[in-house]
């Protein structure tokens, strides 16, 4: 059971900003009136960040990874979360063996 001080600082920093977002409603309730455009930008935050995090792995690693990402994206239109993970992992193992 190890606890690295820098890891603990990172975890606490993550906790502080997360709690801030959850408490913000106490101050904002009833006062938040976003334009449709601002609302669209707000709604786009999760997909923008998720894709920004994985883009190097999906687009800048190799053809096997890019191919498997395309297959996973196709699977995501049909399958639940874990199904997509299963398809993606099998695809990358298969493509790495071939390419």
């Amino acid at each position: 059971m190890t606890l690295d001080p820098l890891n603990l600082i990172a975890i606490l920093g993550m906790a502080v900003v997360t709690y801030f977002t959850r408490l913000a409603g106490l101050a904002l309730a009833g006062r938040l009136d976003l334009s449709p455009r601002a609302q669209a930008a707000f709604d786009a935050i999760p997909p923008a960040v998720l894709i920004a995090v994985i883009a190097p792995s999906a687009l800048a690693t190799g053809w096997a990874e890019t191919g498997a990402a395309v297959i996973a994206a196709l699977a995501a239109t049909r399958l639940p979360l874990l199904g997509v993970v299963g398809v993606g992992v099998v695809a990358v193992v298969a493509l790495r063996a071939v390419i």
Partner: protein
Amino acid sequence: MSALDDARLGFSDIWPAMVAAIPVGLLLGALAAGKGLSPLEVFLMGAFVFAGGAQFAAVELWTSPAPVWALVFSTLLINARHILMSASVVPKLNGFSTFQKLLGLYYMADENWALAEKRARSRALSPAYWFGMAVPFVCCWLTTTTLGAIIGAAFGDPKRLGADFAFTALFIALTASFWKGRVTFWTVAAAGIASALTYKLVGAPWHVAAGAICGLLAAWLAAGDQDEAQPATEGAQS
């Protein structure tokens, strides 16, 4: 209705989401172990942060030593949706004491927020119902992520079985769950290209900020076209 019955009702509403989160929690723990995080660190992250998407993104970005600012920034961005969610749910917390509000909101996640909103449409949202959902949900997440870290550490290098790609596939699936048509398409295209280019030309962890900002800009621009055509959408959506 007694508080105990109400808490039971909360539990019976949350348990399908809880069961669905079991393999996800195990996966997060195993991937975190692959990045060198100890089971204790995984447990503390779950207990303090308790936000699945942000925790997955953090584990993917984690290196040794930890890139603290990149981790905090990515967490803030991914969890920014909580601002809209809490703004929408807070007026429904009438029966809560201040302490119950502060504690209850600490563990507000997508699933229990959505169920609380649903409940508030038919009946008053009680603290018993809220904590009847939240307590088992949090306990399940902490147990499965910690267990995943212990099992994952025993397995060794996750790259061996293609498990390093599990993140990429998982994030693609999560993105699909946030899909809202054309605007999301331009968001994803801009975020992906900007992030990959920044990663190649500048390096980690700048690709996250560059990709996220370009994705948001694209959403802002794409949504502008339909501003007049579409009436205002209401409240928070996750």
